[in-house]
């Protein structure tokens, strides 16, 4: 069976390699992709949208409908992760640590309550003391990562980047917090309700901008029609609409990445994990 699979993989790879021979060369000016459409984009994008980064303009404006459904796909990924993995049943075994002495207590009956107040803290089963160097470095590093993520979102019109990358970087800064401290630190600050609302809000901002353009009398996602709503000169209105769309994508992606991470690492219980 293994040999059979190996033969199939080799055959498919060989066919794909054979198929690439028909593809145009890299950077070939006569290839179909760079004869009709690319010329139009290169000549007209800056005067039509005032956005210097052509990739962002194509993704968020000319192909805005595609990007909207990409955002919806990311949202659906988070939703599927939540529906498959989330587990609301309470946990039977609980561990508590006496803070001054470090003694661990193991409770097998979920009904048992601890009478003592702040001297005990809830602990994970495979708890390891977090390293001071890692904690300190991450605490200093996380705000800079987040500022960089916001920069990537806001500067996506002028330089490489945009909502998707910025959202992923922001989400990974939150994941770094969960890894360097523990999962409870993250879940306490960034609650599940907050994440769910933000994941839906990002898609809503995107679709809402499109519908707003429709209500103003244009086509769906025709940002030029938003000119009376936004405080800007009409020349830059498309760049501003793209920025709004990128912010929506960034919010949705950030929330979905954190939702997926929390659900995977805690088996859907949101209590303990990596």
């Amino acid at each position, binding site marked *: 069976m293994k040999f059979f699979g190996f033969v199939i993989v080799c055959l498919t790879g060989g066919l794909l390699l054979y198929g690439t021979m028909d593809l145009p060369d890299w950077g070939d000016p006569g290839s179909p992709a760079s004869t009709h459409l690319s010329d139009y984009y290169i000549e007209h994008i800056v005067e039509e949208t005032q956005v210097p980064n052509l990739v962002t303009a194509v993704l968020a404006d000319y192909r805005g409908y595609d990007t909207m459904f990409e955002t919806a796909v990311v949202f659906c990924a988070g939703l599927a992760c939540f529906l498959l993995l989330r587990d609301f049943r309470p946990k039977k075994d609980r561990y508590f640590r006496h803070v001054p002495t470090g003694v661990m207590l193991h409770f097998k009956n979920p009904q048992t309550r601890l009478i003592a107040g702040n001297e005990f803290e809830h602990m994970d089963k495979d708890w390891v003391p977090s390293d001071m160097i890692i904690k300190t470095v991450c605490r200093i590093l996380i705000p800079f990562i987040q500022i960089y993520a916001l920069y990537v979102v806001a500067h996506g019109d002028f330089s490489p980047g945009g909502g998707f990358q910025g959202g992923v970087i922001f989400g990974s800064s939150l994941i770094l917090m969960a890894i360097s401290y523990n999962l409870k630190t993250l879940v306490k600050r960034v609650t599940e309700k907050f994440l769910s609302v933000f994941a839906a809000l990002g898609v809503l901002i995107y679709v809402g901008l499109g519908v707003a353009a429709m209500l103003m009398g244009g086509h769906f996602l025709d940002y030029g029609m938003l000119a009376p709503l936004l405080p800007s000169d009409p020349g830059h209105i498309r760049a501003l609409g793209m920025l709004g769309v990128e912010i929506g994508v960034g919010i949705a992606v950030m929330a979905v990445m954190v939702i997926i991470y929390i659900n*995977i690492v805690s088996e859907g219980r949101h209590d303990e994990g990596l």
Partner: protein
Amino acid sequence: MLWPIDLIVLTFVIFCAIAAITVRDLLGTAILFSAYSFLMCLLWAVMGAVDVAFTEASVGAGVSTVFLVAAVFRTSRRTKD
């Protein structure tokens, strides 16, 4: 002058891809996959597709590695086959 860099990185990409499917330690596979993504990011950057390189670096080498490590943490570190 760019093409030797291209070829060297491509060789490393192929090494990483083969190693990622042959290594039996799944945590090592996750790290090798991260290295693969990062080298692909270098390739995209050499070819001038900076936006794609950015996405590959943040998603492929960053977040997906964390997801794989989290999945390994919750399942097993050894493959069956």
